[in-house]
């Protein structure tokens, strides 16, 4: 009565609900969409469908990127941009993390600070650019201030929400073990919320990149954004695209770094379920 196994193999189809996909195929598929993208781009240039002055070929862009780094000191611009991001982000985190944790832990702090913070969240940071320029001139301060303003209120809110979601049973367990308030804050609330804080930081760093480019395009002579605006004046589209490429790659690099940090700092977490 046995059914021949070869004749009736369990069906394998490309599109199947809930079916997993192997790692090998995931990599192949993920790479091929990029190959497809650059291939079509190159094809469009070679076949003359597009004006090469406006759309340089991808190889041309890579070539320009190399020239920028090798001959024109682009590394300095990249360094300045990264320093601006990190500088303002560190200050924002130094304020947002303790404040957010306290707001999420104690209703009194939340009631005092949150009406202020949540109102600021509705003001888009670029709205402050004119006044920041008036106050701080054209130096580093207005850029740092813009990045800071763009990030801090969201970061506070995210961290507050995550902190207030720490399960009450964990806190109550510590209470019935004889924990004092500050002990519980340090030994239960902070470690419980820390993975979520790192995730929030990762998300907000991506937002910081957005504000960085805005700041550098509007009022700067240095940095990646400023280089791109200079290139625009001379119709160097290949340099503009090289700038876009490098911003994308840096964003990706920071994201990878944060994911790595998360794995190193929180080995006890099920990383698959906490991506």
């Amino acid at each position, binding site marked *: 009565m046995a059914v021949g196994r070869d004749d009736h193999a369990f069906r394998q189809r490309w599109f199947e609900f809930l079916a997993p996909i192997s790692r090998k195929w995931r990599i192949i598929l993920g790479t091929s969409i990029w190959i497809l993208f650059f291939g079509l781009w190159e094809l469009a240039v070679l076949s003359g469908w597009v004006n090469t002055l406006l759309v340089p070929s991808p190889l041309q862009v890579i070539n320009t990127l190399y020239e920028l780094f090798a001959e024109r000191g682009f590394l300095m611009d990249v360094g300045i941009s990264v320093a601006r991001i990190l500088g303002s982000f560190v200050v924002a985190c130094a304020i947002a993390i303790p404040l957010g944790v306290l707001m999420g832990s104690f209703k009194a702090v939340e009631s005092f600070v949150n009406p202020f913070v949540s109102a600021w969240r509705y003001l888009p940071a670029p709205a402050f650019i004119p006044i920041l320029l008036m106050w701080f001139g054209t130096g580093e301060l207005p850029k740092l201030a813009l990045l800071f303003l763009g990030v801090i209120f969201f970061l506070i809110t995210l961290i507050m929400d995550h902190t207030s979601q720490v399960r009450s049973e964990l806190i109550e367990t510590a209470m019935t073990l004889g924990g004092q308030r500050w002990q519980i804050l340090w030994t*239960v609330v902070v470690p419980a919320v820390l993975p979520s804080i790192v995730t929030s930081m990762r998300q907000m760093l991506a937002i910081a990149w957005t504000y960085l480019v805005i700041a550098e395009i509007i009022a700067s002579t240095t940095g990646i954004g400023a280089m791109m605006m200079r290139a625009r004046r001379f119709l160097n589209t290949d340099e503009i695209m090289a700038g876009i490429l490098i911003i994308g790659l840096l964003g990706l690099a920071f994201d990878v770094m944060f994911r790595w940090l998360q794995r190193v700092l929180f080995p006890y977490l099920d990383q698959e379920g906490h991506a």
Partner: protein
Amino acid sequence: MNLSHAKGEASTATAVRASTDEPKLRLERVGKSFHVPRGPDIEAITDVSFSTYENEVCVLLGPSGCGKSTVLRMVAGLEQPTSGELTLDGQPIVGPAQERGMVFQAYTSFDWLTVQQNVEYGMRLNHVPRGERRERAAHFIDLVGLSRFADAYPRHLSGGMKQRVAIARTLANQPSLLLMDEPFGALDAQTRWQMQELMLSIAEAANTTVLMVTHDIEEAIFLADRIEFMSRHPGTVHEEIAPSFKQGRRLRQKEELIGLSGYDDLERHILQLMREQGSDSTDH
């Protein structure tokens, strides 16, 4: 003087009551009402009075919504009564403290600590020296049978094992009263009775007084030296039941229960109480 009965029949608690007659834990006319905006206060618990004695396993049993968990949380000091008095060893309960450790139904292992560190946690809060901490934790981890997993993180443990970590952590902290809020409610049937047997043996080994909440009748009869049966509307102690058929003995294994005469009658009696008190139509 009989303080411990709201209503219902008085049954003499023969159980394992210790030599002294001073109660360990005493609740006197405890009530709790919740404030509802634009409405009359809701009285969740009314006039709850009972006592628990040294080394006793006392079970709060009743239909859902009778307020048994609220009573337990008030004993833990996690909630404040609106009337009445709660005392432990004669001292009024004014908040949570190390002397009243609680095990919850939800898993409460700290994910970022290993089993060993979890069990040491309470002692760290109370500044127990490192050496003693190690030793006591190892002892209780051994008691709950998790020595092989001492260095594992909780995410590698099953639900029953996490609950054993919670029990070890609470007992290693040497509370004078162990509180348990449906501690085995989330476990599958087999793990559940294994845990019940384990709990009895370690409560005995650690000389702990236990106050436990459950809605499982069999669990209550198996574990309890005394059962406080609570009713709904009002949430109060309806009847104090001593499972006297056990003749003051603690059972080791669940199957012993079946052979004992008197078990069937008690279970039938409690089932009837549950039916009466559990249905909304019978506010007699």
